């Protein structure tokens, strides 16, 4: 007997379904441990963040309810918004470039048009095992303006006075680092999505005399759209919370990274270093809303564009 789909309880259920309901309720027990942890460590802190943001602590006077005061401060804060603007620009560049590279390689491996595909795939995935801190440190050394090998290489091809940590090049450098860290992961997901395109659809396309580029763009790409949407979504959420890489790079070049370089840096510096918890909480909530709006917005945008080629 198959268990019915989620049923809404109605008064006067028949005796027959009572057993099924009792049995299904046992399923709840399986979910409870996770739910408890989920509520305690994700939902409750969120609630507490909102609560805290509505108060202000002063050295004199203690903690008082201040309503939307912290929010006003945040929303009017040029520091916060400039950081937000920066990560949006950063995301707008980094995500498409990275996904394009990932899709390019995923396609190559899916088609099998390069040798030693499995070896390359494994190599490309290695950065996923590297913590962002270590990755940032490695790249900091590589790009170091005075001693880094990449500067020597740039000199070698005739580009002098290249400072990867200058205010112009800092963001592009971060983009390079993040692309290094995450392309492999994105590529693996796209590769597995491509592999699940039914083989006979591609064979039909071949028999229909479809050139290769068209097979990729008009047959395969539309069919992996769900994976791409998922990746855009996940990458977006991560990109808007950029933190570790600028923080580490700041140790190497203090002047290039300000305390509000990214919103999360702003929150961190305000909340922990500056001990202004309430303000930081408000900023965190605002950031959360921005992220929700942008992510959901990007999903809706993708859906409405339709898939007709």
């Amino acid at each position, binding site marked *: 007997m198959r268990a019915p789909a989620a049923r809404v309880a109605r008064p006067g259920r028949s005796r027959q379904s009572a057993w099924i309901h009792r049995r299904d309720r046992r399923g709840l027990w399986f979910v409870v441990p996770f739910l408890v942890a989920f509520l305690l460590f994700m939902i409750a802190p969120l609630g507490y963040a909102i609560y805290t943001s509505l108060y202000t602590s002063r050295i004199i006077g203690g903690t008082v309810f201040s309503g939307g005061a912290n929010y006003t401060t945040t929303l009017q804060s040029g520091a916060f918004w400039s950081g937000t603007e920066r990560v949006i620009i950063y995301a707008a560049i980094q995500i498409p470039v990275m996904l394009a590279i990932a899709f390019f390689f995923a396609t190559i491996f899916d088609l099998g048009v390069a040798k030693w595909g499995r070896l390359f795939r494994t190599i490309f995935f290695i950065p996923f095992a590297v913590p962002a801190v270590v990755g940032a440190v490695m790249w900091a050394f590589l790009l170091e303006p005075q001693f880094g090998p990449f500067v020597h290489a740039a000199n070698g091809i005739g580009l002098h006075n290249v400072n990867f940590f200058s205010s112009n090049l800092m963001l592009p450098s971060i983009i390079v680092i993040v692309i290094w860290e995450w392309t492999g992961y994105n590529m693996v997901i796209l590769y597995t999505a491509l592999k699940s395109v039914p083989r006979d*659809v591609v*064979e*039909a396309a071949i*028999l229909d005399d479809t050139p290769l580029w068209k097979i990729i763009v008009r047959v395969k790409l539309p069919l992996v759209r769900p994976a791409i949407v998922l990746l855009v979504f996940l990458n977006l959420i991560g990109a808007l919370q950029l933190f570790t890489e600028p923080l580490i790079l700041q140790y190497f070049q203090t002047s290039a990274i300000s305390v509000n370089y990214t919103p999360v840096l702003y929150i961190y510096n305000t909340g922990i270093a500056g001990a202004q918890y309430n303000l930081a909480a408000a900023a965190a909530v605002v950031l959360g809303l921005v992220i929700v709006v942008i992510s959901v917005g990007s999903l809706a945008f993708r859906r409405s564009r339709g898939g007709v*080629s």
Partner: protein
Amino acid sequence: MSTVSLEGLTKVYANGVEAVSGLDLRVADGEFVVIVGPSGCGKTTALRMVAGLEEITSGTLRFGDRVVNDVSPRERDVAMVFQNYALYPHLSVHQNIGFSLANRKVPREERDVRVRAAAAVLGLSDMLDRKPRQLSGGQRQRVAMGRAIVREPSVFLMDEPLSNLDAKLRVQMRSEVLRVHRKIGVAALYVTHDQTEAMTMGDRVAVLRAGVLQQVSGPRELYECPANLFVATFIGSPSMNLYEAALAAPSASATSSASPSASPSAATTTAAATGGDQGGAAIVLGSQRLSLPAAVLKRNPALAAYVGRAVVVGIRPEHLSDPAHAGASPEPGTGLTVEVDYVEVLGSEQLVHFTIDARRVRDESDQPGAAGDGDQGEIVAASVSEGVARIDPRSVIPARGRAVFGVDVERLHFFDPDTGDAIAPTGRAAPG
């Protein structure tokens, strides 16, 4: 000029598995040829070699006069209908059908005209804007066919296109497929595991087993003159009853073949059982004997060489009858006493499952009943010795117990017990 010639086509995979061995087949322009066989017999592989989706290991493939072994699938001008339809899920029916035309840079207006024409042939005209996921199985199948015919190909290939449809729809679609084929009139190669489909649809049917062609001929010939045990059991449902038997010289002492419950006149029975018909033979079937008229031996001289040897005798279920129903008793030498196991009442006929004490011969591909997809080598346990007879629906057959059936001895089939080949005359002398 779209004849297709497979000459000695062989496919060996990298792991050494030989999927198709030396396949010789010719499809004439406009002919509808069906390749049939159990799953794993290499029929799909053969089809894919014709399409160009599998590399040909050895042998020659010709379209017309042109050798196409190394021609890419795009340039072969073949169209194929896949088992799972392989429609482009994100495109509409119109776009699916017109996809190949778009690739060939056919201008939009002309493309539209041709797509609509193809859609009209297949009854898809009001579905052109739908996506595949909004269509039923049968409709998707028709879109797949539309996509194939709109290109006006020289060769039309179909890989089990109906096997994913439910039984009723399958029967309907069979005539659809034939109707469409008649309209486009090119050489067609159709692959299926369903022998009923093969028999009802093919101009000619090629039976394949483990990569080797067993027989290719028209459906009637295939049915009436199977070339070996495999074809005999594969074609026809319920399958032919096959038993180990022996041919004896007619003068051997007779054992009465009539059961006590019938009412024969004992004298005539005994006389007949001794092969009173001079020149005939006796078929020793377990403890019973049937007599083979001399005329049969005359028609089939090869059979005469087997007198005194073991043979395999095949009786089609419809060649057994119930003489008691007409109030008569079986002709002398044609009565077979059986133990009835159970009776399937179909309304139009009865299928009587019985046992006799002869040893049944089973070919591994024996399919019990309809379009079953039997695995190679699977042993069907308890019913090994079971035979099936097709009896008039009004006969009264005891659900258990004995019955006496009449055997149409003129229509018996004989096979060599070692090679499995049919014992048949060279030249066209099909018995019945």
